[in-house]
C-alpha cells in the first residue's frame, strides 16, 4: 500500500517541471567531481565547527538569487516582470552601508537591525513605485520596472555619492558570512524565507488569485478579484525580497559596489523562475521550482569557476547549459505526450494563455 503510494508520489514528482533543473544540478556537480573527486567532500573546520566545502559555497552563493527568484516568480505569475530587482539590491545595499558607516558602532546588533530595517523599507517603497505604475497607472510592467532599473542604480549612487561605501558591523557581517549550527546563516535565512513565502502564498488564497490574474485578467476581474491591491502587494514583495538579497549580497564583503551589486541579477532571477517551470506569460507558478532554478544558477556559476572555464568562454558555456536544459525540458513534454497518447497536432501552439487552447 505505502509502496504504491510512494510510487504514485514519485510519478507525480517526475511530472513536475523543475525535475530537469535538479538533474542539471546533479550533472554539473558530477562534472566537478570528474575534475576533482573530492569536490563534494564536506569537512568541519576544527577551529569553529563550521561546515566547509564547495557545496556550502554554492548554498551561500544561492541565497540572494533565491530571494529575488521567489519575488520574481510571484511577479511573473501575475503576467508581469520585474527588471528592477538588481538595482533595488544596490539601493538596499547602499542604504544599509551608509547607515552603518554613519552609525559607526561596529558591534551593535541595534545598528544592524536599523540598517536592515531601513534597507527593507526603502526597497518596499521602490517595489511600491513599480506596483503603482503597473496597477494604478497602467504602464506595461516591462517598461515600468525598466525605468526603476535605470533610476535605481542612479539612486544607489546618489545615496553613497558615487562611492563604493564600506562599513564594519559584525552582526551584519554575520548574516552573510556567519554560521549557525555549522550551516551558513544566509542559506538558513533564505531557506526560511522561501518556505515562509511558499506557505503564505499557498495556504492563503493569494497564490490562486495571483494565478487567476496572470491567466486571464479580464475574467478574474469579472469573478470579483480586485487586481490592483494584489499587484501592488506582489511588486512590494518583490522589492522587499530584492532588498533582503541586497543585504545578503553586500554583507559578504561589507562593501556596496554601486555599479556592480546586483548587476544583471534580474536575468538570473528570471532564468531561475523559468527553469522552475513558470511560464513568462503568467499564470501557474512554482516557488519550489524557482528555488531549484536559483540553486542551479549558483551551481552553474561556481562550476564555471571551478572548472576554470576562461572568462571569455563563460557566457558560451552558460548558453549551452541553458539550451541543453530547455531541450531536455521540451523533450520531457513530448515524452509525456507520447506516453499519454494525447497528441495535439500543434504542440508548439500551446502557450498557456488565457484566450488560447480552450477546448471547444
Amino acid at each position, binding site marked *: 500500500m505505502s509502496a504504491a503510494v510512494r510510487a504514485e508520489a514519485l510519478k507525480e514528482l517526475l511530472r513536475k517541471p523543475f525535475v530537469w533543473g535538479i538533474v542539471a544540478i546533479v550533472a554539473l556537480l558530477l562534472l566537478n567531481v570528474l575534475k576533482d573527486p573530492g569536490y563534494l567532500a564536506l569537512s568541519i573546520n576544527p577551529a569553529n565547527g563550521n561546515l566547509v566545502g564547495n557545496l556550502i559555497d554554492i548554498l551561500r552563493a544561492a541565497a540572494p538569487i533565491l530571494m529575488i527568484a521567489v519575488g520574481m516568480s510571484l511577479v511573473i505569475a501575475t503576467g508581469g516582470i520585474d527588471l528592477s530587482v538588481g538595482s533595488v539590491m544596490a539601493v538596499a545595499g547602499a542604504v544599509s552601508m551608509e547607515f552603518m558607516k554613519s552609525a559607526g558602532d561596529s558591534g551593535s546588533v541595534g545598528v544592524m537591525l536599523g540598517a536592515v530595517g531601513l534597507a527593507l523599507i526603502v526597497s518596499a517603497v521602490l517595489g511600491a513605485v513599480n506596483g503603482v505604475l503597473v496597477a494604478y497607472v497602467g504602464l506595461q510592467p516591462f517598461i515600468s520596472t525598466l525605468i526603476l532599473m535605470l533610476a535605481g542604480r542612479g539612486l544607489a549612487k546618489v545615496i553613497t555619492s558615487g562611492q563604493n561605501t564600506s562599513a564594519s558591523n559584525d552582526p551584519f557581517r554575520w548574516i552573510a558570512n556567519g554560521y549557525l549550527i555549522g550551516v551558513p546563516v544566509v542559506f538558513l535565512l533564505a531557506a526560511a524565507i522561501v518556505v515562509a513565502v511558499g506557505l503564505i502564498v499557498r495556504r492563503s488564497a493569494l497564490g490562486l488569485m495571483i494565478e487567476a490574474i496572470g491567466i486571464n485578467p479580464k475574467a478574474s476581474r469579472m*469573478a470579483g478579484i480586485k487586481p490592483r491591491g494584489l499587484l501592488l502587494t506582489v511588486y512590494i514583495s518583490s522589492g522587499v525580497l530584492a532588498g533582503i538579497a541586497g543585504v545578503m549580497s553586500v554583507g559578504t564583503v561589507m562593501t556596496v559596489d554601486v555599479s556592480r551589486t546586483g548587476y544583471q541579477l534580474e536575468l538570473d532571477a528570471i532564468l531561475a523562475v523559468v527553469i522552475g517551470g513558470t511560464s513568462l506569460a503568467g499564470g501557474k507558478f512554482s516557488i519550489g521550482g524557482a528555488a531549484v532554478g536559483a540553486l542551479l544558477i549558483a551551481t552553474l556559476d561556481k562550476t564555471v569557476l571551478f572548472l576554470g572555464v576562461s572568462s571569455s568562454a563563460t557566457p558560451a558555456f552558460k548558453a549551452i547549459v541553458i539550451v541543453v536544459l530547455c531541450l531536455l525540458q521540451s523533450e520531457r513534454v513530448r515524452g509525456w505526450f507520447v506516453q499519454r497518447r494525447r497528441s495535439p*497536432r500543434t504542440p508548439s501552439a500551446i502557450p498557456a494563455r488565457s484566450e488560447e487552447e480552450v*477546448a471547444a
Partner: protein
Amino acid sequence: MSQELPVVQMRDISIEFPGVKALDGVDFRLFQGEVHALMGENGAGKSTLIKALTGVYKIDSGSIVVSGQESQFHGTSDAQAAGISTVYQEVNLVTNLSIGENVMLGHEVRGPFGINWRATHKSASAALERLGLGDLDTHKPLSTLSIAVQQLVAISRAMAIKAKVLILDEPTSSLDANEVEGLFRVIRSLRDQGVAILFVSHFLDQIYAISDRMTILRNGRYEGEYATRELDRRTLISKMIGKDLDTLNSLGGNRRVDKRDHAAEEPVLIAQSLGRRGAIEPTDLSIHKGEVVGFAGLLGSGRTELARLLFGADRPDQGAIAVHGRRVDLKTPADGLGHRIAFSTENRRDEGIIADLTVRENIILAVQAERGWARPLSRKEKDEIVHKYVTALNVRPADPNRLIKNLSGGNQQKVLLGRWLATNPEVLILDEPTRGIDVGAKAEIQETVAELAESGVAVVFISSELEEVVRLSERIVVLKDHQKIGEIANGPGVTAEQVVDIIAAHGVDAAADSGLVDADDDLRSTDAAHLPAAGEERA
C-alpha cells in the same frame, strides 16, 4: 446520394485525452451538397471530431479520407488548403485587428503594391453582406463588436473562403432568430452550389429546419447516421441521451405560471436612468425578490450592456443604482459581488473561465474573491461547494481537478454557473447562460433558475432564444437600439412571436396595444423615493 463517394469519410476514429476517451471508434461521412448535423450531448465529442478532421488534434487510430485521398492534416491551414473551411465552437478571431481583416486574413486581395486594402475591405463587406452585416464599418477593430456579432463575422470569414466543405460548430449559439434565418439562407444556397456542410447545434428546431442527415454521438461513441426526416425528435433525443423517453417529459413546456405579485414587495435592485454613452440609453428598472426578469431584444440591442452596468462590470456615466433601497456605487465587479449580485457573462472564453485553473478553482474563485485572499476557504468548505455544484449541474466529467480548458464548451458553461451560484447571490444576472448547452442540460438550467427564484433570488435572464425568455420570466424588459422600449408582464397569452412583433413595431407605430406596458408607467414600483439622493446624475 449515398451512391456517390463522400467528400469526407472518417473511419473508426479514436482520440484519448488524459483520463478521457473523447472519441472511440467513430465513423462519419459527409457528402457533397448536403447539410449534415452532428448531434450529441455536451461532451459527446462533436468538437473533438471536428478538430480531428481539421488536423488540430492527431488521431490515435482510424483513417480520414478527404476527396478520395487519405489525409491527416497538420493543422487548420492544411485543411483549408484541402478545401475545408471551419468555424470552431469558440469564436477564434483576433481582436486586435479590424473586422475586415479578420474576415480576410490570409486571403487578402493582393495587387502590385502588396495587399490592396480597398479591394480587401470590399470583399470583406461583400462577405459580411451575405449575413446581413453589410453596414458594418470593416475598418473598425473587431473588439468593438459584441460576441454575437463576432460569431457572425467568424462565419462570414469561413464563407469568404471558397471551400468544398464548410464546418460550423455551434454557429448559432448566440444568434437570434433573424440572424439564424439569414444564416440558413446562405447555408442553403451554398448547399445548392454543392458545398458539403457540417453543422452542430443544440437547437433541435434548427437541426430540423436545415439538416438533411445527421450523425449522432454519445459519450464519444458512434450511435448512428440517419436521414433527418426519418428521425423524430423524441427518438433523436433518446438516442443522444441514451435514456428512456420518460426522463424527457420534463423538457420544454413547463412554463412558470405561479405568478406572484412581486410589485408589492420591496425591490432588491432599482436602477434609475442608468446609462452609459454609446452602450445604453438611460434606463429605469426594478427587480424584485424571487422574480425572474427577462431581457428581450435583438442582437446588439443593449441587453448585455445594461446587465454589465447592473453588476458593476462597466461604470455608468449617468443614473444610479440602489440595492435594498440603499444607493450604491458599483465601480467594479467586486462591488457588485459585495452587494450579492452575480453576473454570468456571455463571453465565456474571454471573461468567464480561467483556462489554466482546475474546475475546482474556477468554481470557488468568486466566493474566495469575496472573502479576500487572507481568509482562504478551508479544504472542507471547498470540497463541499465544489461537490455540490458539480453534482447539481451535472458537470461532466465530474472530476473537479481537471483543467477547465479541457472541458467541452457546454460543461465549461455549467462550471461558470456553479461559480456564481456558490456566492449565494440575491440578484443573479445570467447573460446567455444556456449558450452551447445541450437540450437536457438546458432544461436542467431552466429548472435551476426556477428553483432559485422560488427560494427568493431575483434573476435577470438574458437569452437570444426568445422562447426561453418567455417561458421562464415573469416580466420581460424589451430593448431595442440600446434603449429600453418597455416591459411586458408575462402571462399565458404572451408568446415569443408577440415580443418579436413589438420589437419590430417599435418606432414604426405605437406599440402600446400589444400588451406593452409603457416604461414610465412601470416606474410606479420603482418610486424615486427608494433612491436616496435621487436624481443625482453623474453625467
